[in-house]
């Protein structure tokens, strides 16, 4: 298979993730491996921002590069980190010349055996999700066509990521909605049970539930569920009003 064919196949593999269920990490690992295969890179790593914005190393083609990526995250320095922050590609032809820019990271990467780095952002419109990084053991800049290819691969991966997050988010919210509604149902049912058993009004029943929950430092929902289950008898929910 020619390089072009392999590249085309990679795009198809990435695009497939848009239609089928896929594992995010698998996709990211695939992306980095293909970059090393098809582009002028000795190693590749991928960083994604977590829910609170902190960068995480999600994929790395070798232990050496994993260590280098981790170091970037921890030292808050480096081409990938800068790429993520700025949202634009970062290209470095010789890391030995970057000790002013990255005083901690540059020497560390050079010691690890890497001399050059290129980072492209995973971004769509205004959102930057992370950075895809290509490292080389010899100095020199990456061919423009390779950078463009890396960016194109990153773009397809970004779309898949965003789509999978949207799906996940919707499911999470739907679950929260269901829980919130179920909780209300339980509370209303428990009010009914108390009202009938203790022969009190709905308001009084609710007061009793609330007071019982507060004194016991339990959640209202939990107390309600216990009344429904029968583990809490209506009589137990009587709170003495005598001071």
């Amino acid at each position, binding site marked *: 298979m020619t390089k072009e064919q392999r590249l085309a196949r990679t795009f198809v593999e990435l695009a497939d993730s848009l239609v089928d269920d896929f594992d995010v990490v698998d996709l990211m690992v695939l992306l980095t491996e293909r970059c090393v295969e098809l582009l002028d890179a000795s190693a590749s790593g991928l960083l994604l921002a977590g829910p609170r914005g902190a960068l995480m190393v999600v994929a790395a083609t070798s232990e050496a590069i994993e260590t280098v990526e981790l170091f970037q995250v921890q030292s808050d320095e480096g081409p990938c980190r800068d790429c993520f922050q700025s949202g634009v590609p970062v290209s470095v032809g010789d890391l030995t010349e970057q000790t002013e820019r990255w005083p901690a990271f540059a020497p560390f990467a050079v010691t690890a055996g890497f001399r050059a780095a290129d980072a492209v952002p995973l971004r769509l419109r205004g959102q930057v999700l992370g950075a895809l990084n290509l490292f080389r053991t010899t100095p020199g800049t990456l061919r423009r066509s390779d950078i463009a290819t890396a960016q194109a691969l990153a773009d397809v991966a970004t779309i898949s990521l965003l789509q999978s997050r949207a799906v996940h988010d919707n499911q999470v919210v739907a679950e929260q909605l269901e829980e*919130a509604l179920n909780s209300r*149902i339980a509370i209303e049912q428990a009010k009914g*049970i108390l009202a009938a058993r203790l022969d009190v009004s709905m308001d009084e029943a609710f007061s009793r539930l609330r007071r019982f929950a507060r004194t016991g430092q339990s959640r209202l929902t939990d107390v309600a569920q216990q009344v429904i289950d029968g583990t809490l008898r209506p009589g137990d929910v009587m709170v003495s009003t005598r001071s």
Partner: protein
Amino acid sequence: MSRDRDNTRLARVLAILAGGGRSPGILCRASAESLGVAGAGAMLMVNGLPTPLCASNGVAEQLEELQSTLGEGPCVDAHESGRPISEPDLARPRRARWIAFTSAALEAGAGAVHSFPLRLGGVRLGALTLYEPTPGGLSDDQHADALVMAGVVTEAILSSQAHAPLDTLSPELELLAEHGAELHQATGMASVQLGVSVAEALVRLRGHAYAGGRLLSEVAADVVARRLVLESEHGTDP
């Protein structure tokens, strides 16, 4: 339908949406307006119970209540199948289904009903139901627009819940909880009065409503007001 009428309708809908936010009530009215149907109602399936969320007018509200009471109808099928379900002629249905619902719906003033699932991929919330007083199907445009509207309603519901503090129900959906409140209170009371589980109590309330040709919500109101006390086999109405 003329282009002018389309544009005027669309402009009115956009005005409603822009001015009033995305509360379910507004979305129901916007659905009816934008789709050019007599009325629209929405329900969420909560714990297996079709729970009315909103309705654009009295008939639509009645249809939602009927489906909740009877536990059957196009909205239930649309929700369960995840596909739009239509009955363009309730008086002469092509298929024998929802027998109880169909006769009650005709009585309420509906000639045709079309239900669209409220879903976003794997997330399924309930259904949006449109009705017309006279028989007829939806045009291709209406059908396509209804699919879009159902998506809008689903997103609005999820989005309003997403902005609610953790463990609470979004204020726009309070209506949903309040509407069901009396029913669930009645379920609790009936479970004590009958000495059965709440699940069984709901079944009995439903049975009582159906036997008496009444809406579940009406029976629930009577139980909560203590005008009705269900006993073992027979209820005692005053």
